[in-house]
C-alpha cells in the first residue's frame, strides 16, 4: 500500500512508478496541489514521465542513510532551509505575540496529541510501542521527573506573557490548525498504527537540538534565549521541549525504522510522513497568524 503525499489518494501497491505516474497525470491536468508539491519537492521544471520517475526514485531512496535519517533530512529541508517556515522565523526573535500565538494554537495541538498517542497505544500489539506512547501521554498530563505536566508548562508560559488560561482553553483553533488536527485524528484512529506513529512523532523534530547536523540553516530558536528569555516560564517551556522532544523523536524514529523494516512498510511510512509534514507546515503558519491577531488587537 502507499498513498499520494499531496492528495492522500491510496494506491494498492508501493511502486514508485505508481506514484510518479499519478503526479505526472495530475500535473498534465494543471492540478494546483500536485504542481505545488512537485515545485517544492522535485523540480519546478516540467519533465518527461520517465525522468520524473527517476526523480521520485531518488527522492524516496533512503538506502544510504537509513529511514530515520531520511526523515530527519527531509524535515529539515522543509522547515529549516534558506526559506524557513514563517513561525520558525518568528521564533528567531520571538515577541510576546509570537508566544501568545504559540500557546493558543498549541493548546489545541496538545489535546489532539494525547488522543493520537492513545489511539496508537490502543491499536498496536507491540508492548515497546505501548510503553513509548504511555510515557508520552503521562508526560503531557502528569509531567516527568517531578516536572509539571507539559500542558501546564504551556499554559504557564501563556500566563507569563499576559494570556489568561481561560482564554486559551475556551479559544477556537484557527482553520489551518483545525485542518491539521482533523487529519491527525483520522490517521491515528483509522490508519495503521505505524503510519500514525510516523505522522505524529516525526513532528517532534521541530525542536530537535541537532537539526544543524542534518543540514538546517536555522534552529527552532537560538539557545541564548534559554539564558535570556522573555519570561522564566517561556524559558522553562522551551527547555522542557528542547530536552524532551529531541529524546522523543530520536527514540520514535528508531522504533519507526525498526518496525517499518519488519512489517515491510517503509515506502508507505515515507509517504505518510511527507503528508503529515505538510499539515504541520500549515499548523505552524496558524501559530504565526494567531500571533498577528494578538498583535493587532493589543
Amino acid at each position, binding site marked *: 500500500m502507499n498513498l499520494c503525499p499531496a492528495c492522500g489518494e491510496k494506491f494498492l501497491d508501493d511502486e514508485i512508478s505508481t506514484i510518479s505516474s499519478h503526479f505526472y497525470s495530475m*500535473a*498534465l491536468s*494543471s*492540478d*494546483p496541489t500536485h*504542481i*505545488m508539491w*512537485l*515545485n517544492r519537492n522535485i523540480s*519546478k*521544471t*516540467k519533465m518527461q514521465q520517465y525522468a520524473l520517475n527517476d526523480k521520485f526514485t531518488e527522492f524516496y531512496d533512503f538506502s544510504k542513510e537509513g529511514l530515520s535519517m531520511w526523515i530527519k533530512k527531509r524535515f529539515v529541508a522543509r522547515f529549516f532551509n534558506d*526559506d*524557513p*517556515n*514563517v513561525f520558525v522565523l518568528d521564533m528567531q526573535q520571538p515577541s510576546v505575540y509570537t508566544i501568545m500565538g504559540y500557546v493558543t494554537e498549541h493548546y489545541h495541538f496538545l489535546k489532539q496529541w494525547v488522543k493520537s498517542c492513545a489511539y496508537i497505544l490502543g491499536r498496536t500489539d507491540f508492548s515497546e510501542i505501548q510503553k513509548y506512547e504511555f510515557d508520552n501521554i503521562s508526560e503531557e498530563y502528569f509531567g516527568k521527573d517531578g516536572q509539571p505536566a507539559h500542558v501546564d508548562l504551556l499554559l504557564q508560559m501563556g500566563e507569563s506573557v499576559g494570556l489568561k488560561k481561560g482564554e486559551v482553553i475556551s479559544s477556537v483553533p484557527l482553520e489551518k490548525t483545525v485542518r491539521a488536527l482533523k487529519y491527525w485524528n483520522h490517521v491515528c484512529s483509522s490508519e495503521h498504527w505505524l503510519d500514525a506513529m510516523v505522522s505524529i512523532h516525526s513532528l517532534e523534530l521541530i525542536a530537535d537540538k541537532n537539526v544543524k547536523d542534518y543540514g538546517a540553516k536555522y534552529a527552532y530558536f537560538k539557545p541564548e534565549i534559554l539564558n535570556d528569555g522573555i519570561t522564566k516560564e517561556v524559558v522553562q517551556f522551551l527547555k522542557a521541549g528542547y530536552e524532551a522532544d529531541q529524546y522523543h523523536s530520536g527514540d520514535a524514529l528508531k522504533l519507526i525504522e525498526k518496525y517499518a523494516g519488519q512489517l515491510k512498510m517503509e515506502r508507505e511510512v515515507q509517504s505518510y510522513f511527507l503528508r503529515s509534514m505538510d499539515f504541520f507546515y500549515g499548523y505552524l503558519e496558524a501559530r504565526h497568524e494567531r500571533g498577528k491577531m494578538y498583535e493587532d488587537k493589543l
Partner: protein
Amino acid sequence: MKTNYEGCALCDGTWGDYWREIEGKNTFFCCSICADAFENMVNRVKKETGWKKIDSVSIEGNYSKGRDCVATSGDKRVEYFFRHEDGVITEFRLKGQGTSPVP
C-alpha cells in the same frame, strides 16, 4: 503585458497548462491558483495606482517569503510587495508607503 518569467507568470514553474487572459494577453500559468493570485495582484495594483493599464510586471520571491514586484505603465513605475493564499491577496504594500494588510 510583459512579465519576467518564461514559465508560469507567477511562480515560473513549467508544469501544468493553464491559460488566462491578463491585460489583453493570453498568459501561461501552471495552475488556476497562480492565475488567480496574479490576476488579483494586477487588479490591486490598478486600484492602488489608478492606472488604466499595466505594461509590465516583474516578480521576485515565492509563497513563503512573499513577492517583491515592479510594475510599469507608460513612464510610470511602482514597487510593491504582496502575499497570497490560495490565490487571494493576504498582504499588499506599496513600497515606501507603509503596510496595508487586507482586512
